[in-house]
């Protein structure tokens, strides 16, 4: 097929579920949804420390490098299609 020429103006398509979440917000939602952190932990502990702790727990569970950082592999894993059942807790 003819190589698509360089895309023209980028269009905003109506009804597209664009995620305008920042990476940290995406991570916080993910960690909460899949049981790696609880709402209480997210509210009380120091944000960075609890995020790092929850990230490490998620990275361990999913066989990722346990960095406690929001690195590319971890973000990619958070965007990957998956099952909706939490990984931790009821």
């Amino acid at each position, binding site marked *: *097929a003819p190589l*698509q020429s360089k*895309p*023209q*103006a*980028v*269009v905003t*398509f*109506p*009804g*597209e*579920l664009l995620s305008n979440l920042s990476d940290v917000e995406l991570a916080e939602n993910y960690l909460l949804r*899949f049981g790696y952190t609880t709402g209480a932990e997210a509210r009380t502990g120091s944000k960075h420390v609890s995020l790092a702790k929850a990230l490490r727990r998620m990275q*361990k*569970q*999913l*066989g990722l490098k346990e960095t406690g950082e929001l690195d590319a592999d971890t973000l990619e*894993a958070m*965007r*990957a*299609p*998956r*099952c*909706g*059942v939490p*990984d931790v807790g*009821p």
Partner: protein
Amino acid sequence: FLTFEGDLKWDHMDLTYRVMNYSPDLDRAVIDDAFRRAFKVWSDVTPLTFTQIYSGEADIMIMFGSQEHGDGYPFDGKDGLLAHAFPPGQGIQGDAHFDDDELWTLGTGIVVKTRHGNANGADCHFPFVFEGRSYSRCITEGRTDGLPWCATTGSYDRDKKYGFCPSELLYTTGGNSDGSPCVFPFIFEGTSYDACTTDGRSDGYRWCATTANFDQDKKYGFCPNRDTAVVGGNSQGDPCVFPFTFLGQSYSTCTSQGRQDGKLWCATTSNYDTDKKWGFCPDRGYSIFLVAAHEFGHSLGLDHSSVREALMYPMYSYIQDFQLHPDDVQGIQYLYGRGSGPEPTASTPVPTEKPQPMPTEAGSTFTTEEEEETPEPTGEPIPVDPSRDACAEKNFDAITEINGELHFFKDGKYWTHSSFWKMGIQGAFSVADTWPGLPLVIDAAFQDLLTKRIFFFAGRQFWVFSGKTMLGPRGIEKLGIGKGVGRISGALQRGRGKVLLFSGENYWRLDVKVQRVDKGYPRATDDIFTGVPLDAHNVFLYQDKYHFCRGSFYWRMTPRYQVDRVGYVKYDILQCP
């Protein structure tokens, strides 16, 4: 693997399931077959049976839905969450839900099953040639009734094999019209419609009337997705309209113009610029079989696994020749295997006490070897020589995992180490106490994952233990291993009752059930296990990776045959100080 808190499990083995509705992405027969195969994944390795029922309350109720679909756990549009399921129990427990904002396929693109025609329901063959032109979608060319059709071989001109494609002009699903096709135009709430609509519904499913007036007749059905149906966008399920105009240009195929992510889309009216109606063109989609097999694992009591290759790993990845991973088998057999899991305690699944280590069965008697399921030896072994320190050993006669714990054998003694129960090294125990009849020095051992039987090798002899019952010694020539082999140095369990036996620079594949090595063996270890010592003293499977030991070192290899670690047996695996 992980079970749900309290080892929730069904209290009966003959389970029922019911499919409440069907995704418009696939022919109903394709979905039914996928669910049947997904249940078979689990019934193949347990005493469980699954029967589809078509009315009433089944143990496992299956439904498709999008966004909020009635259980308070909304889906999230295309991609992201694909499905979820609930652990065993009454009511919604055990049920499985699939996000219908996904494109459901068999994992490699849309499955277009034909009806009527002369191809007995065969799938479309894309591309196909008709009157010299090549087509990669259903067409209405060559017909006056506008019914989309396709060839079921590469060339209609040559083979004349064809069938009709899913379309609302051919049939509808569900509803109250027994599959009758749509009637266009039809009246709904006083308005005339000449295409399927989602009006009047909150679940986003496209429907039509099957008479000219719905207001009057109330006859309707759901529209099957055509092969060019879009996914997501603001017209989910509507077919692309070709050609369509976009930014003043005409397009006769899906395009990624206007986007930065390269995703292909199309308009669902002839002019995007004026109507702004669009959606993503079908991609590989998600395998309803694989996702269902995973979700049914939850419905049976399995939680997520941390083993990447396991079916119960939370992320989706398409696998062509699917095979249940030993981790999944161990998990489901822990719950339902013959006598190895906690017995159901009451008439309905109730949380049992906290998960216990694999139960040991006191003094079980076995009927015949074929039927028995063998728990580990009765009672906990008594340390005979706790002063004997595993960390003082230079190397070991054999290393293998038995009942989830690594066992280190040396001169008639053995130690155990469990990564799960954080109890450090246990032992030394006496081999003769646990497995009477074995020689002082063994060369290799492995536990068959399905039957739990334990094979021991020393020199050219081998023994098979089922609990305390021992078979042997027998010569390894009985397994089909030739005279030139002096000893077996290790074993790697594979799926489906196969085990690789290593000796020197070769390995054999043993069929555990028939206790014979497969044809075409031995093979050179270096053929696929590249980068590990070919004269390894021990070879064993642990935490789903292959370990080859020589001297005080081990080489660890992933199931994709990549060496991902070289370390010390003592400090890394035994975790000696």
